[in-house]
Each structure stands twice: as C-alpha cells, then as structure tokens.
C-alpha cells in the first residue's frame, strides 16, 4: 500500500496515510465485529437457556447492539467521589488500546496486516498481556473495594495465565522455526492435516490448552473472576457506565477475537481453508483471492469466539483459588511437558511416522466432530426443563 501511495505523495506522508488507513480499518473491524458478537452472544445465551434472545430491533434483533450503543453513548459519564479521577478516566482506554494494538500484528490474509512484524506472535502476546493494566487501574481508581478486589484478582489471574499461554504458543513456534505469523500461516497451506494442530499429539493438546488458557486470559467465563457478579457486584466495572463501560467491552470482544485469530494462525492453518486444492490468491487474482482468505480467517476466528460463548453459557464459574490452582498446578506443568515433548518429537521422530500421525489425528478429529454433532442433533430438549420456563 505504501508503495502505491508513494507514487502520488512523499514517502513519509504515504506511510502516515497508510498507518491511518490501517488504524481505521482495524478500528472499524473491531467495532463491527463487537456489535455482531454482542448480538451473537445474546442470541446464543438465549438459545442455550431455551429462550429467543433479542428479536425486536431489526431482523432477528440484529440492530440490538446499535440500540444499546446509542443508549450507552447518551448515558451520563460520571466519576465517583473519592476516585482518582485521572486514572479512572484513562483506564478504559488503556484496556482498549492494548487489545487494539494486538490487531496491528495480526495478519488477516497473506500480507494483509497493518504492520508485518518478524516477531508477530511474540508482539501479540506482549500487547494482549498489557490489557490487564486497564482492568487493574479501573479496579484501583474506583475507590470501591469490590472494584479493587476485581482488579487485583484480574492481575493475579492474567499474570499467571500468561505463562502457560506463552508456553503453548511456543509449541507450534518450535515447529515453524519463526515468530512471523505470516510465515507460520503460510507453512500450513494445503490439506487440513497440514495444520499444526494435527502436526503431532503435543500440538493437538497444546491447542486445547491454549484455547482454555486464552479464554481465561480474556477473563471470559468460566474464568471471569474479575467481574464475578455473584461475589463482587460487577468487579472492576462496578463504578463504570456509559462510553467508558462500553470501551471495556470493546476491549474484551476485541481480545477474544485476537486470541482466536492467533489460535487459528498458529494451529488451524490461518486463512487456509484446508479443503481447497489450490490457493485462492493464485486462482482468483490478488484482490478477490485475498478477500476469500480474509473471509476464511474471520470465519475461523469467529467460530472460535462462538465456542468461547458456548463455554460461557454452559459451564459454571470457578472459584478464584480453583482458577489459580488450575493454572499453576495443571496448565503450567502440562504446557512445559508439551514444549519438551514437541522438541523431542521434532528431533527424533522419523518423517514418515510423523506424516502418519498427522493424518490419523486429523481424521480422528473430524470423525469425533461428526459424532458429537450427530449425537447433539439427536438430543431433544428435556421436557422438564423447557416446561419449567413455559409454565408460570
């Protein structure tokens, strides 16, 4: 983009313009996707709880988020007395900026990235882990003990979960031999058993662990101890309202998509469908091919986000000590073991055997998925449960 712009304007200006364009695109994507995700979350929670969810605004209630947004923008923006005004005001922006910065290094397709970084994966982890600052500041500056509890819990939780998350990211990176997300995704082109999740048993497990840990580090249920409305009112969000409150949600949904995108780039082949015998960019030309790739990538990321929502509405929340115990006593040793295991695998496993394992894993996964879907389809809603909601 810079090159094409540079034909018309000076180089520096071109770079600034490109940067602004990228920022606008990313911001637009975050905003739109958050609107859609909030709608989806309400719909999914409704379905899971055997109700309809939003139906009034727009078709299927699609505009519900917009209506909510208008309400939030017009709400009074106030700061509690006794709060540290400066910190209270900037906390949401700190949280949002961190999530936003993550998208700078997230490639949506081959070369479709705001700033191609050689250490993309590392950078992504780094900025996502600084999101905790906003929460911590919000909790501290609210001058409210529930907020403070929420903030401190969040700090402890995120700092702890960051370790197994980084270790699990290292597992595919060990195979790829680079930190460049673009390159990692390109290495997984072709059929879907080339995805790193099917590379060997360790990456398969690493993907599972990474997904759980990433959920936790986005402070999503069942790990949402920072809000924990049954214990802490609303945690660090207690004193917030209006736009500032919505920035926290923007940040949350953005980082959900960011970690899902990271997962799909590292484990699930990035923008590769895994089912096409050709490259869309080669077949359909750069513009349309890249659009297809972007679509595939967003679909994969969104599917993972939907799984996160599914988890939120199906699983009960853990206690804070259980959360910490799960991380430090289980995830941390397991991820260390996985890292060692994948190194040993890379060093000593013969090529042929590795190929076989990959196919077996992939086929087994597909079969398992089909079995789950079929058995889920055969399940009927429990009459007692549905009855409980219909009858007064």
């Amino acid at each position: 983009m810079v090159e094409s712009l540079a034909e018309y304007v000076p180089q520096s200006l071109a770079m600034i313009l490109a940067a602004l364009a990228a920022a606008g695109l990313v911001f637009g994507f975050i905003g739109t996707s958050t609107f859609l995700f909030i709608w989806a979350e309400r719909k999914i929670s409704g379905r899971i709880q055997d109700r309809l969810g939003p139906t009034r605004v727009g078709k299927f209630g699609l505009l519900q988020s917009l209506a909510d947004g208008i309400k939030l923008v017009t709400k009074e923006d106030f700061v509690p007395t006794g709060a540290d005004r400066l910190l209270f005001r900037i906390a949401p922006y700190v949280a949002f900026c961190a999530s936003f910065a993550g998208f700078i290094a997230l490639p949506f397709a081959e070369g479709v990235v705001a700033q191609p970084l050689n250490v993309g994966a590392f950078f992504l982890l780094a900025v996502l882990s600084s999101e905790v600052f906003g929460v911590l500041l919000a909790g501290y500056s609210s001058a409210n003990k529930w907020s403070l509890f929420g903030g401190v819990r969040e700090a402890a939780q995120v700092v702890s979960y960051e370790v197994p998350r980084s270790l699990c990211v290292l597992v595919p990176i060990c195979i790829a031999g680079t930190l460049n997300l673009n390159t990692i995704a390109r290495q997984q082109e072709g059929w879907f058993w080339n995805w790193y999740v099917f590379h060997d048993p360790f990456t398969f497990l690493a993907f599972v662990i990474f997904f759980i840990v990433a959920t936790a580090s986005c402070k999503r249920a069942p790990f949402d101890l920072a809000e924990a409305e049954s214990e802490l009112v609303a945690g660090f969000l207690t004193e917030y309202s209006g736009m500032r409150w919505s920035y926290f949600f923007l940040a949350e949904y953005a980082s959900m998509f960011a970690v899902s995108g990271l997962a799909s780039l590292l484990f699930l082949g990035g923008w590769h469908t895994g089912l096409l015998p050709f490259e869309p960019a080669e077949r359909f030309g750069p513009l349309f091919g890249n659009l297809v790739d972007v679509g595939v990538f967003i679909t994969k990321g969104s599917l993972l986000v939907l799984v996160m929502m599914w988890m939120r509405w199906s699983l009960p929340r853990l206690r804070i000590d259980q959360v910490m115990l799960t991380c430090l006593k289980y995830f941390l040793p397991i991820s260390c073991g996985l890292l060692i295991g994948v190194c040993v695998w890379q060093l000593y496993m013969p090529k042929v055997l590795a190929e076989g394992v990959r196919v077996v894993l992939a086929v087994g996964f597909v079969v398992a998925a089909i079995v789950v879907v079929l058995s889920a389809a055969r399940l009927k809603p429990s009459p007692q449960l549905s009855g409980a909601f219909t009858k007064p």
Partner: protein
Amino acid sequence: MNLDFVLFTILATLIAASAVGVVSSATIVRSAVFLLFTLIGVAFLYFLLGAEFLGATQLIVYVGGTLVLVVFGGMLTTAGPFNVLRTKTAEWVLSGSVAAGVFALLVSISLQLGARPTSTGDIPGPGPLGMAFLTTHLLPFEIVSVHLLVVLIGAAYLARAKKKAGSP
C-alpha cells in the same frame, strides 16, 4: 526532517514527560501509570530502532510482568486509599541539583562524542540473537537462568505467608 526524526521526537517527548510524571506524582499508583507510559514509549523506541524482538520483550516482561508486580505491590502496601508520603522541599532541591548535575555531565559527554557513523543497517533479528545466546554468550545466558531460579526460590521464600508466633 524525516519521518524517523518526527517519530523519535514524539516518542522522546512522551518518554520524557511521563518520566517526569513518575518523579512528580505523589501517589504510587499514579507513578506506576506514568512508568507504564515510559516503558511503552521505550518499547516503541526499540521498534523505531528496528529491534523488534527487544521491543516485544520489553512489553511482555516489563509491562506485562514487572510493572503489574510493582502496581500489585503498591496496592498491597498502601495502608489507606491514595496514601501519600511527602518529601521535604529541601530534599527536592538537593536531589534535583544532583540529578541535574549528572544530566548535564552526561549530555556534555554525549555531545562530545560528536558525529558518529550513521545507522549500521538492520539490527539482527531473533534468530541470530538466539544463536548468540547459545554460542558466544552462553555463559551470561546460563548465569541469568540460574539467577532467575534463585530469584524464584528466594522471592517465594521471602514472601511466603509466615505463621504468627504462638499459633500452631
């Protein structure tokens, strides 16, 4: 007057301003927030210099780890809300003059260095850096590893919950 220089000026202003903020803030958490901006600014300075790996390391270790710890510690050790420990003006003057003296000396030394060869090209990425850590600089790497282990154990020991004397 190129883009690099503009970006540097912006970043340097951010870093310097927030460093001043760190010093002048009365409450500890506010200092920490200014420190956060300083550190992020320094991280972006590394990106500007082309040391991407270092910048990311700075972010993940300093911002995501160390600073969270510091804020955590600050929160745990403030007895009341927004606890403030005031410093006497005389001390400010004394310390300020010493710091100013050091700054002046350092600047004069920097200026004395004069014109240096400009950029030596791209900074080696994580690959050469990792190789360096496992070959020529293996000893410092191992020392740091052992050091970290010692710190891990030592900090856990120091901060462990102590039983009150007399209780079982």
